[in-house]
């Protein structure tokens, strides 16, 4: 019985241990662009910028709120070196396109059909956002999205923009 309990505890710990949290280095990922799969967007190429990696999908209800909010933040801060990378988790690209027809965004979008990016970050909720500083370190993790998240994120981006690269 004790052995069984220990094995169960180990299993639970191993499942919780992988998640990327604040302070960890952002996983090195190279993902195909959603609109042009032949082109790729390596996260390493964005080093020196403040990056918000956002996992979204058309079926994710809070994403209807997060995507327009992220677009606003991107437009406000892009000239100072801020970028949003939207990682799409739809099974079908058509679903993503239908969503984007309603909620247009101008920041780069990538697809993650093999789940490499989601596994790399060990995404625990949808949407999940990872705010990465200019040195490639994850500084904040947002799981879920509300109006408060947007306000909080604005403050965090402003603070990170002031940090030297």
């Amino acid at each position: 019985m004790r052995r069984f309990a220990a094995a169960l505890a180990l299993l639970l710990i191993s499942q919780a241990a992988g998640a990327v949290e604040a302070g960890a280095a952002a996983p090195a990922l190279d993902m195909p662009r959603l609109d042009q799969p032949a082109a790729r967007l390596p996260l390493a190429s964005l080093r020196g910028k403040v990056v918000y990696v956002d996992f979204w999908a058309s079926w994710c209800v809070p994403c209807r709120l997060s995507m327009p909010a992220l677009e606003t933040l991107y437009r406000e801060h892009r000239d100072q070196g801020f970028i949003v990378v939207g990682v799409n988790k739809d099974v079908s690209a058509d679903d993503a396109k239908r969503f984007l027809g309603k909620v247009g965004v101008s920041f780069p979008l990538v697809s993650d059909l093999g789940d490499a990016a989601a596994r790399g970050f060990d995404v625990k909720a949808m949407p999940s956002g990872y705010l990465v500083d200019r040195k490639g370190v994850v500084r904040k993790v947002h799981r879920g999205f509300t109006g408060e998240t947007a306000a909080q994120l604005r403050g965090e981006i402003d603070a990170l923009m002031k940090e030297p690269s």
Partner: protein
Amino acid sequence: MKRWLAALVAATLCGCTAVAPYQRGYLARDDMAFDPSPGTARALEKTYSAKEGASGGASVGGGGCGCN
């Protein structure tokens, strides 16, 4: 017997898999819903309870007193 039971439990557990939050696209499809059309179901239920003169018994609150 115990070993057999343990093997059965292990075999059963092998069939279980956790669906990651980012893999719920299939589960979110309309045809995966327990009740794909809640509006129609509600209308049918209302008609049924009106015709039968009783409500309840179809996973709704109340129990046929006609007071809800």
